[in-house]
């Protein structure tokens, strides 16, 4: 503030210096004119003819006109221009206010919109992961039951196979014994003891199985 005022007064000082110089010029010109005037016109400058009553009458009328102009300007004309300028200032300020309000409203709407989008995004993501988890769990339990069923079927089948195999092996021993007895009796013509054959067959089967 102080600096600004300092500048202003410095400017005013410089302005005064210029004006003073101008004044000197103007004053010397005036002196020149006043002294040279009688050379041009015998009666001198009409402006300096104060014997002429019109010179003083002019000043009286000047005072009347100037005061009337001042009163008309200060009471009537200038307030009109001031009110126009004020009206413009208030209307511009009002428009700016409305624009600022609209902008803040728009900003709030945008923020709300962004928030809603974020929330929707988050809930959709949650729903997707929940669905994935459920379906994964369902698939897991299904596969567990399926595996169990398959295991059971496999076990059953293996058991059946084992049973069939055991049955087959049992039958094999009897068939082999009978065949051996038959073969031996046919070849040799003598019956042999069944138990000997049985032992031999069992030994042979054991040897094979091992």
């Amino acid at each position: 503030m102080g600096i600004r005022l300092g500048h202003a007064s410095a400017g005013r000082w410089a302005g005064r210096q210029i004006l003073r110089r101008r004044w000197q010029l103007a004053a010397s010109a005036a002196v020149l004119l006043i002294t040279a005037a009688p050379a041009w016109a015998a009666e001198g400058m009409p402006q300096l003819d104060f014997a002429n009553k019109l010179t003083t009458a002019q000043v009286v009328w000047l005072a009347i006109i100037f005061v009337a102009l001042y009163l008309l300007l200060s009471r009537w004309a200038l307030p009109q221009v001031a009110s126009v300028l004020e009206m413009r200032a208030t209307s511009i300020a009002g428009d700016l206010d409305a624009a600022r309000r609209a902008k803040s409203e728009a900003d709030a709407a945008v923020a709300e919109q962004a928030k809603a989008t974020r929330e929707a995004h988050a809930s959709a993501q949650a729903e997707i992961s929940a669905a994935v988890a459920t379906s994964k769990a369902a698939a897991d339990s299904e596969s567990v039951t399926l595996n169990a069923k398959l295991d059971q079927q496999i076990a059953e089948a293996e058991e059946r196979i084992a049973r069939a195999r055991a049955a087959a092996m049992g039958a094999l021993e009897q068939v082999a014994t009978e065949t051996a007895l038959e073969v031996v009796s046919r070849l040799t013509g003598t019956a042999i003891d069944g138990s000997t054959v049985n032992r031999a067959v069992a030994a042979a089967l054991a040897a094979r199985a091992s």
Partner: protein
Amino acid sequence: MAAEAHSIDALGQFKLHTALGPFGASVNFTQSNLMMVIAAGLILALLYFGAKPRAVVPGRLQAAAELAYDFIHKMCVDQIGEEGRRFFPFVFTLFFFVLFGNLLGLLPFSFTYTSHIAVTATLAITVIVLVTVVALAIHGMHFFTYFWPKGTPVALAPIIIPVEIISYLSRPVSLSIRLFANMVAGHVMFEVFASFMVMMAGAGVIGYFGAAGPLALNVVLMGFELLVAFLQAYVFAVLTCIYLHDAVHLH
């Protein structure tokens, strides 16, 4: 104006006579005062018709009126400070009264009332009386310290105080003579060149070519005088503002 072909009457244009026929003559209403009334009417018309549309986006006339208002208002506030608003109507009246007087005087067959020392001195004395009254009203007796700048050695008092008083009293003289002399000088030059042109033209065919010189000079001079008309009105108003600043703030 130039009655005889061989003498140039450069000062006859400033002679006062009554206007408006016998009515003006009966109250000594001069052609100078008629121009003042016309100037005042034009200033009021500019502001009235300028402010009338009350448009937010101003037209040309409204822009001119607003520009005039803002220009003087800014000058007052810049030069005087916030207190300047109180003096704004006075400075506005002064500036436009002088400006329109200067400009109307440039029209052919018109009269320049600012070329009369009685008129400019009256305006200048009005300014100086106002400035002194304002200073006394604001600062009372403290106003007289204006003639005794702070920090001046006491020994210099007998010199400084008379110098300050003379410089204060010379303000109305410089204000009035500056405007008066500028206006008179311009109009005398117009008249001299114009008379010279007529004299040259009277000298025959060669004179017609010779008359082109003063004619060209007068054309250039008209541009210059337009500048002077604005400049002198501005100087008058700015100096008034500076004096008012001194009155309000005392240095």
